[in-house]
């Protein structure tokens, strides 16, 4: 393929991806507010546009026009840099996540992954998600406020402890899959999802992923009841919106990762006999269905996250650490060993 065309394809694809993520972020907020309202016997935002569909737009406009306040005693450069450091890794992770196989467009074969068949895909994911903690820690430190600092400290401790268990749950997956390439992992789940082969791994991954993105019940760094708003207490306007954006994009990212690792990625979520009877529902037959299936799976997992938030109170910080180190870590270690043993015995 011509280099020029492939660069063009790459450019268009990344623009589309970023645009979809940003829209996805906006509508995830709406989804969360509407779904949580249902859980709480309320209606939720339904005034701006039909069914409140323009609410994210209204929020965005409001936040853009808010006054930007930088505390006098803050470290200005870091203070401005921190929200960017939080958002960028969240978006960048998406480069390796396949959201479809590949489609033919104007005679050009377009892979529906930004960086397809990257042979260190999982390592890349782990590396980038670890970077995102810097945004929060630096925000906490740069604000020069006690609440922010406590929030930042909490998040660094929390992320480090939970990343271990998360990494181990992926090790077990890699042992089974025999590859670090995300596209390959998805293709391997054509017949049976890894969720059924790796139930413990999947559950541990999802729990730690919740902790990784600071969602309830692990929303320690921004524990409203204790730390007013944690690391983003001093932020306002668009900078605050960026943190908000980072959180919701990370929600989408971990849903996408869970789907890719354990729920068959963009593969059709349909039983085998159905795709045999109606072959056009299969991704192999109609590659354009890939992103659709992928999106539906992500939304399902997002709703699970909202459900958890609407249901559970927050852990206390010290218990959270205990849970990470004394429960999740041993279980995931044991799970890695069991998986390895089984793989070894089966040859």
């Amino acid at each position, binding site marked *: 393929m011509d280099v020029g065309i492939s660069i063009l394809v790459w450019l268009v694809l990344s623009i589309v991806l970023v645009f979809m993520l940003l829209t996805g972020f906006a509508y995830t907020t709406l989804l969360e507010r509407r779904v*949580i309202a249902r*859980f*709480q*016997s*309320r209606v939720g935002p339904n005034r701006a546009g039909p069914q409140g569909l323009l609410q994210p737009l209204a929020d965005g406009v409001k936040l853009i026009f808010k006054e930007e306040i930088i505390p006098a005693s803050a470290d200005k450069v870091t203070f401005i840099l921190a929200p960017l450091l939080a958002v960028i890794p969240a978006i960048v992770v998406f480069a390796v996540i396949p959201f479809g196989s590949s489609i033919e467009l104007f005679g050009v074969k377009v892979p529906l992954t930004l960086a397809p068949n990257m042979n260190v895909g999982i390592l890349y994911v782990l590396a980038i998600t670890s970077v995102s903690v810097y945004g929060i820690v630096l925000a906490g430190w740069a604000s020069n406020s*006690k*609440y922010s600092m*406590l929030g930042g400290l909490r998040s660094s401790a929390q992320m480090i402890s939970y990343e271990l268990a998360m990494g181990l749950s992926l090790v077990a997956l890699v042992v089974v899959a025999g590859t670090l390439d995300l596209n390959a992992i998805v293709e391997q789940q054509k017949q049976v999802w890894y969720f059924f082969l790796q139930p413990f791994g999947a559950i541990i991954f999802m729990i730690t992923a919740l902790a990784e993105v600071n969602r*309830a*019940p692990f*929303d320690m760094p921004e*524990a*409203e*009841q*204790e730390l*007013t708003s944690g690391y983003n207490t001093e932020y306002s306007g668009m900078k605050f919106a960026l943190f908000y954006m980072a959180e919701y994009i990370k929600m989408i990212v971990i849903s996408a990762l869970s789907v890719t690792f354990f729920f068959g990625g963009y593969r059709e979520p349909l039983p085998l006999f159905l795709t045999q009877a109606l072959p056009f529902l299969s991704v192999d037959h109609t590659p354009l269905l890939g992103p659709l299936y992928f999106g539906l799976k992500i939304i399902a997992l997002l709703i699970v996250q909202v459900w958890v*938030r*609407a*249901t*559970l*109170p*927050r*852990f*206390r*910080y*010290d*218990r959270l650490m205990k849970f990470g180190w004394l429960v999740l870590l041993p279980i995931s270690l044991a799970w890695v060993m069991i998986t390895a043993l089984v793989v070894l015995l089966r040859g």
Partner: protein
Amino acid sequence: MAAKAAAAPVAELTGPLAGLKEKFGEAVKPGDFEGVVINHDRLVEVATYIRDELGYDYLTSVTGVDYLAQNEMEVVYHVLNTRAGGAPLVFKARTPRENAVVPSLITVWPGADFQEREAWDLLGIKFEGHPYLKRILMWEGFSGHPLRKDWKEAYYEQDVKPFDSRWPGGHHRRAEDRVPYADNVNFPADFDPTVYTAQADAAVYERFKNYEVDERGQFVPKEAVKDENGNGKFQEYLETDELVVNLGPQHPSTHGVFRMVVALDGEKIMHLEPVMGYLHRNHEKIGERNTYIQNMPFTDRLDYLSSMSNNFGYALAVEKLMKVTPPERAEYIRVIMAELTRICNHVWAIGFLLNDLGAFFTPALYAIEERELILDLFEAVSGSRMMCNYFRFGGVARDLPVGWLETCRELVFNRLPKKVDELDYFLSENEIIRARCEGSGVLTGDDAVKYSTAGPVLRASGVAYDVRRAEPYSIYERFEFDVAVRNHGDVYDRYLIRLDEVRQSLRILQQALNQIPEKGEIQAGKKQYSARVPAGQAYGRVEGPKGELGFYVVSDGTANPYRYHIRAPSFINLTALGPMSVGQKIADAVIILGSIDIVLGETDR
């Protein structure tokens, strides 16, 4: 006008009071009320005797009264026996107005802490021996002691309402127009508002162990903190400091403008100091300007979540003076309203405790749903959902509307019991709730009595004291109910006891709704524009949702109360907050506060 009640001294002292007289002789004199006046040189001694020998282990109310005409200050104490129940024992100490000094009883009843500070703040009575006699509701830039009868507020108009300017014939002129430059605002002699900065509130930090105030009024860690062996603590090998965090006054989980100054070692609380008064409007001074009936709607604004109970307490106190009893139907209506209020308040408290635990509003909104239905009932009888203003001296304001009882029965017999079980089912056994609540903020029964905590806080610590049972008022002795008690005294028990109390309230309500006469008077005597209250003094108390709510009213026979004091349970329960929180994590401070269940309208008054 400060004519003191002219009743003759009660010559015969009976019961425990006679014993006091016998033991202490001349130091104890009978007063012109049901109680004694004690010489303040032997006050602590007599108080200790009252506590240890007579069994009055619980100090419920301390307040002062300024008798301008007699040039005398009176400190009034009400003490209770939590084991035997019964009416409070009243004793007083008298002191001249200038340089008013009374010995502090904080060593006998530590619960006197906040109330003595309040009496100093508002009345200028010094309590000798109180370790921390600082203003508690007012700020340091406040001049004088507002509850003194000769103290005039900045926009002073007249001593008592109705003000001439608001009366037919008069022309209302706003106070701000009469004094446009606010040049009648006073500051203490050594206080300059132009140089005042918030950092000067070093007074708050004074009690912090490892901190001191330097010469600039700044708050700094002490240089060397030594342990028992004289070794420096952490500083020698590791630079660690305690971190002082101000939770509040603007903070999402202080339930209003309340502030907790917390010293943290990591996330552990080393010291906690409650700071209040941000919502203070001197309710009592305004109450003394008001006429008796004007205070009825004003009590709604105390604990604005349970206005019916506030009405109840005030009505009882004034009815004691007026010697009227409400007719049968009115009594039932009152009990029904008070118990509905309790349910309202408790489901709210449970919902928001869960919110403090970090559950994102779901339990709170489920709880509020039930509260809304009860507020509908309040609205139907009183016209207002929260500020009900429904009780009157000797009855209630209006009869129940047609169909009200049916709606109420449907709610009480069918819906609410199910909903309480639902709350119980979803919340009580939740792993995270149990892990966080069990064992945090423990208050032992002895401490609960010592710190004068009341209501659910007291009963969750294993002290079965309920005013409805200890000194039944209204018609509570007719109903069958249990005093809910839990024994661990932690946050979890304070949560459970609210569920228990809601269930008991439902029992009372079911009996009351079955027994209430279909027709009947709802107001004793004829309706009056203004209540005629004979001279005297009375302490009316009810078991409010937050604890014992007492109104101490002194009448001099005029249309306005001479003294109008509120024993606010939210305020006094906070005495125990510090002791309960030390050693816990910062996240626990929030739920401990939530489990005490305060409303700032009542705390700050």
